[in-house]
């Protein structure tokens, strides 16, 4: 069945460094969402991408959806300690209410 691989599993950076997490699918995705979960918290919606080649920005965060709609990335410029958490990509299988999450990338930031 359709699966997404999220890499890396863990990323440790110094504050001020950039960070990128990737979500790769073996098949075409109709949409992709990104969520952030702070330690001890719950997933919080960040963005949804639906168009081929789509790029969206939220302050220091840049989200991309690949031209073939098989991969997506989240890039954070100049990380801050508030960026700490696990970033999940997620997608809905066609016609389903079910949102499937990737394994997540856990980001830690050294101040």
């Amino acid at each position: 069945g359709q699966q997404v691989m999220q890499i890396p599993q863990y990323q440790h950076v110094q504050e001020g460094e950039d960070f990128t997490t990737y979500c790769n699918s073996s098949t075409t995705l109709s949409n992709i969402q990104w969520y952030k979960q702070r330690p001890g918290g719950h997933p919080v919606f960040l963005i949804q991408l639906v168009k081929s080649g789509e790029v969206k920005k939220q302050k220091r965060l840049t989200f991309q959806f690949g031209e073939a709609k098989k991969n997506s990335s989240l890039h954070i410029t100049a990380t801050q300690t508030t960026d700490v958490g696990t970033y999940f990509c997620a997608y809905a299988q066609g016609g389903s209410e079910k949102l499937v999450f990737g394994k997540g990338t856990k980001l830690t930031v050294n101040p």
Partner: protein
Amino acid sequence: AAGVIQSPRHLIKEKRETATLKCYPIPRHDTVYWYQQGPGQDPQFLISFYEKMQSDKGSIPDRFSAQQFSDYHSELNMSSLELGDSALYFCASSGRTVRGANVLTFGAGSRLTVL
């Protein structure tokens, strides 16, 4: 703004006991979801309800059941608890999205510990 309310926040049970988790979705959200998250794991979809009818089912054990009531609140019932059921259980709700998949708003979660 009103959020998704889950109760209880923490629950400790013995093996083979029963537990019930409650979820109050955001008003006017028509879909409720239940997810299970083990330590260091991604959220795993259990079940969803659209307008009080079961709409999708994931990897929910037969020992678990869920329903959505007329006031839109939902309950997840777990029986014959096993040690492996210890996890965070999230409820989420969503309204209809014009484009793409439904956007989920998660509650704070209920942490179940089975001893």
